[in-house]
């Protein structure tokens, strides 16, 4: 990042502060819980996890321009690797950090194995291959009954162990040092990992590799004529994207204390993730985060709150399904996408604008003219 961008505190820091403070101010969570009877903080935790997944997908689809329709498979692979390595039914029982690292590495490796033979395909053909891989993975997970426990999923995935040094500061903040009693531990774990991923991706985006990804998206032939090894660059994008998906999968399984069934990782999930990054703006980290918060947030947070309000206002005493907001969710979602495609096909925060904005802070023309003279 350029030095000048550090001077002006970006608006993201404000959002981050709100997210950091939300669980510590106990009141909003309690009020929302009374209204909706679900823990909004827990839902936010899942949103953070999906944000990591979407960022991974964004590396492949947004930066490098490879249409990947099977990201949910890698999400599932991460979850199942974590499950196999940690559940008490199997003898491995690794700790959380080891499972996180191995899930990420395992999903990345499978991404490379899928990518290496198929990255020569262009556009639609690659999309079909990844789509097929997603479905194959789901059925494989279901049919390897002995290993994955079929449709039941592996559980219980144990919670991470807290370092002893953490208990005192946690007590100080009023957080119970028990993962099953207090959602806030998972909340901060997921938020922390999300932050880490965002920072690392931003760095990569502005490095040699990030430029090579975008160059391949813009014009593959010209990029190879500039000495960029297209196969290797695409493979790195695939590995990173799938690895991040695996990491999100590990977090998901740990938070849910179960791998869920194979059907939790179906085509639907891939498409929702794709919608998130298209809505937010392909190829932009900020846009991706916005897309996830809007779409998944709408699904998991806004809809239950509205349901609770309608319930609370006694508008719908007879339980009429037309007056339950959740039943309109998909329709609103579809409508929003159609309107988006009509009025803002490039997404809410497209990467082009970001690029232009970002470069505003580079040492300006004055410096160059002085140099040229």
């Amino acid at each position, binding site marked *: 990042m350029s030095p000048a961008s550090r001077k002006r505190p970006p608006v993201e820091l404000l959002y981050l502060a709100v997210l950091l403070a939300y669980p510590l101010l106990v009141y909003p969570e309690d009020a929302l819980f009374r209204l909706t009877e679900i823990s909004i903080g827990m839902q936010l935790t899942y949103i953070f996890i999906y944000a990591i997944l979407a960022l991974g997908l964004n590396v492949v689809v947004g930066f490098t321009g490879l249409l990947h329709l099977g990201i949910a498979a890698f999400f599932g692979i991460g979850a199942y690797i974590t499950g196999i390595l940690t559940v008490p039914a199997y003898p491995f029982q690794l700790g959380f950090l080891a499972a996180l690292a191995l899930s990420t590495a395992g999903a990345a490796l499978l991404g490379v194995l899928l990518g*290496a033979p198929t990255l020569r395909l262009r556009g639609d053909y690659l999309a079909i291959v990844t789509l097929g891989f997603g479905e194959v993975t789901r059925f494989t997970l279901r049919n390897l009954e002995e290993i994955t426990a079929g449709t039941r999923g592996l559980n219980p995935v144990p919670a991470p162990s807290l370092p002893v040094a953490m208990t005192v500061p946690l007590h100080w903040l009023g957080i119970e040092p028990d993962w099953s009693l207090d959602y806030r531990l998972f909340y901060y774990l997921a938020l922390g990992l999300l932050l880490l991923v965002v920072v690392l991706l931003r760095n990569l985006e502005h490095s040699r590799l990030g430029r090579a990804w975008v160059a391949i998206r813009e014009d593959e032939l010209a990029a190879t004529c500039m000495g960029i090894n297209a196969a290797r660059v695409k493979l790195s994008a695939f590995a990173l994207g799938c690895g991040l998906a695996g990491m999100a999968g590990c977090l998901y399984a740990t938070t849910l204390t179960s791998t869920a069934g194979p059907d939790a990782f179906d085509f639907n999930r891939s498409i929702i993730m794709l919608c998130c990054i298209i809505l937010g703006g392909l190829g932009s980290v900020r846009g991706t985060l916005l897309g996830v918060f809007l779409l998944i947030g709408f699904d998991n947070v806004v809809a239950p709150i509205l349901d609770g309000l309608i319930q609370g206002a006694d508008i719908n005493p007879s339980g009429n399904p037309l007056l339950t907001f959740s039943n309109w969710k998909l329709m609103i979602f579809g409508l929003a996408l159609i309107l988006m495609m009509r009025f803002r096909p490039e997404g809410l925060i497209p990467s082009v604008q970001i690029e232009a904005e970002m470069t505003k802070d580079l040492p300006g023309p004055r410096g160059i003219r002085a140099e040229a003279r």
Partner: protein
Amino acid sequence: MTLLKLNKLIVRFGGLTAVEDVDCVVRERQIFSIIGPNGAGKTTVFNAITGIYEPSGGTIEFRGQPLRRRLSWQVLVLCVVVGLITGFGAALVSVDVNALWRAAIKRNYARPGEPFSYAAAGHDAWNYMQGTLALDRMRGNRWAVRTPDGRRTLGYAKSHDEAEQMRSRFEKLIDAAGSTTAPVERDGKWVVRDRDDTENLASFEAEADARAVLDKYATLARDPAARRRSALVALLLGIVVGSAGTWAVWSRARRTPEVISRAGIARTFQNIRLFQNMTVLENVLTGMDRGLRGGVIRMALQLPGIRQQERAARERARRLLGFVGLAGKERMLAKNLPYGDQRRLEIARALATEPQLILLDEPAAGMNPAESIELNRLIGQIRDQGLSVLLIEHHMKVVMGISDRIAVLDYGAKIAEGTPEEVRKNPKVIAAYLGSEEVS
């Protein structure tokens, strides 16, 4: 000194010959132009040089070497590794990974909290592949003899020794059942003897019972042998297919644009191919890719070395932009540049790869007279920096003004070559451009 040498270059598309027997020699610090009417095959020559097309015949040498990716030990290692992965994957599928998991992991870890030994699991996995019968310890020091995958129990024993004996008897029985052994009558009983006919394995009152037992174990006998065989075949086939496939893919992609660019030949395109949604500066930085170092982790962490390198690269990119006359426009998106600037940016991006030879494909197309004079100067400066320029151009002013040597293509063949003066007077060239006079 000779830089680029085309020797009888031929490019065919199906039955259509686009370029035929073209010879060319570009020397160091030379501006060499290729001219000719539309459709003469000029851009095809460029594409063949830069590795976009594979020449159908003839050779292209750069500094005395054919431009091909070198065979290195990494490639061979890659072939072997891919082969092993493929073979291992195929073998896993063929032995039924589900049953293997059950035999190796689940049998050794039936209840949570039991001690688990990886050695025992590995041993059991090996036994499973071999098709050896498995021994399971039950509660109360009882033992069970089971099929390799642990699904069928053949018998129970009271001690380990007894279980071992039982296993060896069952294995002999299975072995016998798998061979052509038939029950024989001894002392009024029907006896099943082992394969080598040395001992009695079981005896029955009726022949039908003995045959039934043999039939029952015959399926077990066929099973492990067939599995062993198919696993081996899958493994070997996977290794062969995987490594041969990797080799085939590698050897077909030896002459790619990337290799040629890295060897020191850069190019621009007739229909501008900039990275439209990147800024001007980023376009040039992309050209510098091969000069930058650092792995993914170092880049993700933005370690000081990487930052410094990036800063130096930006500095160089700005100098290059100043050189082609785009100073001050570095923040603009490439697609928002005016046409002439886009052409100049393509030249800057090509120069960023630090080439020894730069191929310019109609750089003056669409420029006004003032701009093409400016371009002439720029091409001259590029040569003065020690580079050679291979130029396709239609503007005769540009071509005649700066070229050291000119080759004329018509219908894919070279019809003339020489200094601008010689080419200008060549009747064949005049005929190609203006049409020949009809003899009446």
